[in-house]
């Protein structure tokens, strides 16, 4: 399938009242929004078959722009609402957009259990290394030594690796990309949507307004160029030595495996329950 035409993307957006969007100029969330819509179209989905769920923060404002069922929930709890929606209507494709603080700090418990359960949900975790909306405080993914509004003398906690965390917790599909790598992002999103289990896509996105400014990383353009330098496709990453990996991160499909699917297992539970009731 070729590129999705602009007019198709346009037809998937809500035009009553909602634009311009709330994000800072240069924010990566707009790029993700475009990629998400294109990958939904590429997956052959209709608007009525999709529900977008989000938590709180800059990423939480994403679903409102898309002309599908959209639920902007409470901080960290998006996956719990999504679980309810998915169980209630298994025919729906439920995509959850969260930030790094949203998904791995306040919502960390829900993330690992959703991964363990392997219910078919797509978790898109936008990682900008800090709490952007509240003014650049450190998050669980802020690198050690970095500066943040609540770590003026340098951050002293080790950072979470979102992809490794999700994989260890049991997600069927785990991938990583950046908003610089738009083509890859679109492809990975489509793969995540098609995957039958719980899939996690970590998307690195620059927050030049807060994280970039406090750590003197330059403009959004400079930060994007940084992604270009640091990102290494996982195929190449696997052949690199530890020394070569320094200052880089792997992108692409990190985990893709077949695990028992929650809904299939639950259908068996229902059958067993019916059989016992019949006795």
């Amino acid at each position: 399938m070729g590129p999705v035409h602009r007019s198709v993307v346009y037809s998937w957006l809500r035009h009553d009242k909602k634009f311009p969007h709330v994000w800072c100029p240069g924010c990566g969330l707009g790029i993700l929004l475009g990629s998400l819509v294109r990958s939904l179209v590429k997956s052959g989905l209709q608007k009525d078959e999709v529900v977008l769920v989000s938590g709180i923060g800059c990423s939480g404002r994403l679903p409102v722009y898309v002309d599908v069922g959209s639920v902007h929930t409470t901080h960290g709890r998006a996956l719990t609402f999504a679980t309810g929606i998915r169980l209630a209507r298994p025919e729906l494709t439920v995509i959850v957009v969260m930030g790094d603080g949203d998904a791995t700090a306040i919502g960390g418990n829900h993330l690992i259990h959703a991964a363990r359960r392997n219910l078919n949900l797509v978790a898109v975790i936008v990682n900008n290394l800090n709490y952007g909306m509240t003014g650049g405080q450190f998050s669980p993914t802020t690198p050690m030594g970095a500066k943040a509004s609540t770590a003026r003398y340098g951050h002293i906690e080790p950072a979470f690796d979102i992809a490794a965390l999700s994989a260890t917790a049991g997600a069927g599909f785990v991938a990583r990309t950046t908003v610089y790598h738009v083509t890859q992002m679109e492809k990975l999103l489509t793969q995540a949507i098609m995957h039958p289990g719980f899939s996690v896509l970590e998307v690195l996105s620059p927050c030049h307004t807060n994280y970039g400014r406090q750590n003197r990383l330059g403009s959004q353009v400079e930060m994007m160029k940084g992604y270009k330098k640091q990102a290494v496709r996982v195929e190449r990453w696997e052949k690199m030595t530890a020394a070569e990996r320094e200052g880089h991160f792997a992108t692409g499909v990190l985990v893709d495996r077949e695990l028992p699917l929650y809904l299939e297992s639950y259908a068996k539970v229902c059958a067993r329950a019916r059989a016992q009731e019949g006795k």
Partner: protein
Amino acid sequence: MAKMTATLMQGNEAIVLGALAAGCNFYAGYPITPASEIMELMSRRLPAEGYPFIQMEDEIASIGCCLGASLAGRKAMTATSGPGFSLMQENLGYGYIAEIPMVLVNVMRAGPSTGLPTNVAQGDVQQARWGTHGDHPAIVYCPATVKECFELAINCFNLAERFRTPVILLADEVVAHMREKVTLPEPDDIEIINRRQPTVPPDWYIPYKSDGSMIPLLADLGQGFRYHVTGLVHDERGFPTRRQDEVEPFYNRLFAKISRHFSDLEMVKGFSLADADTLIIAYGCTARSAAAAVRIGRQRGLKLGLLQLLSLWPFPRRAVEKALEGKKLALVPELNMGQISREVKRVNGGRTSVYRHGKMNGSMITPNEILNHLREVN
């Protein structure tokens, strides 16, 4: 049709049977004493019907799951006790502001914190009203018998669906664990209310625009109606707004949709009130002791009467005012330090003398304690 026979059952069991009779077809929860039997029974009953049941990682997730499922068209319930109820307050507020029907059962035990996990208390009465942040209306019912557990569970579902709001069933450890003989009504004799669905084509649907009822019509998510739901204050289309001319009408409607139906929500039972000169106001397990106190007192020639509150919030003001009228005194026994007695004093307006009888030692108030207190103040 064969007449249903009386069965011996537990309060928690009756809550489950009531919920199922009301059409509950989704349950998400987290184990906690003294509410666990509700989840255990649901885990057996729902899969047999092909309905979702899920044990979540905590109470926050449980209520989130219920709210999501309800948006997608399910009649959802969760049950918990004090510590879990505290955790649920955040998403309970989401349910109020986004107007999502669901039933939350809180089987009260002694708190705060872990408190006395296996002992009875009635300390969550004000939490059930004011637990989540921000001002909002709340609907809360409280059973005193196993039969009432069944009836009020149905009532809670009906009100949640009718008013598009979370409704709380506030049971207590004694009523939840007690076994009584109950004769359940025939399914055909049970009135069931389901949420009103939009009848307009999806393109015309405005999710938070209401008609004269002030209650918007809730379309099932993913059924051709594409709309936005948020915990932010929103306009009629469901989109976030800070415009004062939209924010104020939103809050006004949220309150009015409940307050204009106070008389429908008020539920009390009166015992020996006709000629009583001394009034006892009680609810939950304490209403059982109070009923016994009235019986014993009457045998001794005391003119005692009991007003049992089944609806706690909105506070049944009119019924309480009427009962207080012309009484020598009123006593409010409860397993806390005065959470309902302060409401009674608030509406008393000088009609009579109102005394509270608080008890917090993990056990019930006995009929004798009530009679002794009455003797002291009489």
